């Protein structure tokens, strides 16, 4: 199965497919960032609902995170610094997933603040976790394709010998 995936990823269609996934992911992150950028106070309030972050870090996180989503989104769409964006977005998604699970396990119930800071968004739940896992999988696929088509891009760890 792995070889057939590799063959597909190496093909013209595979290249087109991963480009579409990358641009789609980029546009999604740009879209998700805009409302938070425009309403930093409301986004800070959303973050504080999770009751995870120490208070001194609340404002600075609410200021930087949406812009990181935006720059990563632009990086994916324009295909520049895209690999750094896979990892930065992957890291952000893992943090989101852990935050959602942590809040759910403590019985907290509120809107997740994922795409918009206010409004008719669904509350926390496994659906949010699965949505984020889907996004994480897309990042992993894009990085995996890079490894397949450009073996030189794999990390080399020096060995003691």
């Amino acid at each position, binding site marked *: 199965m792995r070889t057939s995936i590799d063959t597909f990823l190496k093909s013209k269609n595979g290249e087109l497919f991963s480009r579409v996934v990358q641009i789609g992911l980029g546009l999604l992150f740009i879209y998700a960032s805009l409302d938070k*950028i*425009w309403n930093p106070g409301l986004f800070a*309030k959303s973050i504080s609902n999770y009751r995870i972050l120490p208070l001194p870090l609340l404002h600075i996180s609410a200021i930087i995170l949406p812009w990181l989503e935006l720059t990563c989104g632009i990086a994916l769409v324009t295909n520049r610094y895209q690999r750094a964006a896979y990892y930065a977005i992957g890291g952000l998604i893992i943090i989101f997933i852990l935050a959602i699970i942590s809040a759910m396990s403590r019985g907290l119930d509120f809107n997740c603040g994922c795409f918009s800071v206010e409004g008719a968004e669904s509350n926390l739940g496994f659906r949010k976790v699965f949505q984020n896992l889907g996004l994480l999988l897309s990042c992993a696929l894009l990085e995996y394709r890079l490894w397949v088509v450009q073996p030189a891009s794999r990390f080399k760890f020096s060995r003691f010998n």
Partner: protein
Amino acid sequence: MSEMNKLIKEIFILILVSSLLGISAQAVLPNGIGMITEVTLVGDDATAVAIPSVSINPNGEENAAANIDLQAAHSAYEAGSAIFLDARSPEDFAAGHIKEAINLPVHAFLDSLTYLETINSATHIITYCDGEDCNASIDLAADLKMMGFSKVNFFFGGWQEWQTAGYPVEGDS
């Protein structure tokens, strides 16, 4: 440069650019916030709890909703001068609530717009939830402020304090 170093450098650049953009944007945005988290102390002096100011007043308005203590809330109740809105879930509300309070779960805020539109915007509204371990009363008060109600208080002591004081309640248990 190894692939790993190049990647780390690029991630660092993305974070740096985002930080610079985010921090500078606060000077330009109409609702920009400072880098230092402001907190508001809510509750009685001895047991006051630090709440991020953005939770109470996310858009930095001049006239934000404020806390009302047990005695003031009770006076308003006795005088019949305020509407009490219970921000908890329908289940919690059914189990017991401040007498004559109306259930308006904060997550169902948008479902309650039809009801809220029937209330005069100058009416004194007091929101509450379970007590000091919940923020729903604050969230609801902030939502009501944004909707245009001029006199909104949150009763942070909430259901726990009201019940302990032996003030009028109704409900299943």
